[in-house]
């Protein structure tokens, strides 16, 4: 196995990730890439308490994650890499080969337009997703495994709303 899902989700570790994806994929570890969380022991403990004891969580800054990614991609266990925003994932994609990017949840805030039930994007963020796709990653939106993956074009156009 390897990293089986690369996900952008502004809620980071939460029910959909741990239970919704974690159980069907038999996830054994999560790589959480977030500079703020990586700098805070308290935040890390908060997220560790949200996962079952048999699931490992590794915390990295973006820079650390770029260096560590080949190790996780070669890991024999099934794992999930998680970022809380698009620019963080974009930096990883620009530095390393990442085959797919799952947009799992980017929620409402000022300046964003609703594109799907769980995806709100600014124009700049839409361009960042296109830049990720241009690097060779297949970008789709899918909140839970049972949902239909939505293409980047349909996600950005709001066709799937």
């Amino acid at each position, binding site marked *: 196995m390897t990293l089986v899902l690369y996900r952008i989700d502004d809620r980071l570790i939460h029910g959909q*990730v741990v239970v919704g994806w974690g159980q069907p994929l038999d996830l054994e570890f999560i790589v959480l890439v977030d500079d703020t969380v990586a700098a805070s022991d308290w935040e890390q403990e908060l997220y560790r308490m*949200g996962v079952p004891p048999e699931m490992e969580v590794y915390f990295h800054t973006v820079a650390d994650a770029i260096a560590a990614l080949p190790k996780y991609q070669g890991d024999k266990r099934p794992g999930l890499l998680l970022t809380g925003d698009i620019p963080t994932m974009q930096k990883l994609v620009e530095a390393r080969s990442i085959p797919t990017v799952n947009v799992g949840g980017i929620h409402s805030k000022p300046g964003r337009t609703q594109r799907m039930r769980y995806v709100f994007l600014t124009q700049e963020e839409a361009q960042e997703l296109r830049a990720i796709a241009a690097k060779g990653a297949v970008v789709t939106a899918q909140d839970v495994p049972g949902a239909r993956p939505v293409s980047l074009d349909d996600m950005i156009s709001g066709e799937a709303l």
Partner: protein
Amino acid sequence: MPPRAIVAGHGEFAAGLISAVQQITGRGAQLVPVAVQKLSVTDIEALLRAKMMEAGVHVIFTDLQAGSCTMASRRILRGMDDAVLVAGANLPTLLDFVFADAKTPTDAARHAAERGRAAISVHGAGA
């Protein structure tokens, strides 16, 4: 009786459980439902904080240990010595809580958590 606790979770978890509490006891008004669909973690935290202030309560019940509401609540409770979060709440938990009005809300929440934990049973198929 005024509100004594917030109930928050996925989908219509809060409204559904409070509806059941109201149907069984008539005491659903002690619980304030919070739904958080479409909200970011930051907005969930702000909403829960505002609901707590508005209702004047220091108890939060949530559905799932890993849930966004639980994460946000733990951030809110950081540094609040007089507040309690019960994660993994179920209907027996809330029923016990609404009847424990002689206790302080935080004591009632702790008691209700134990009652909810003990209320799960398995029957049949050799159990």
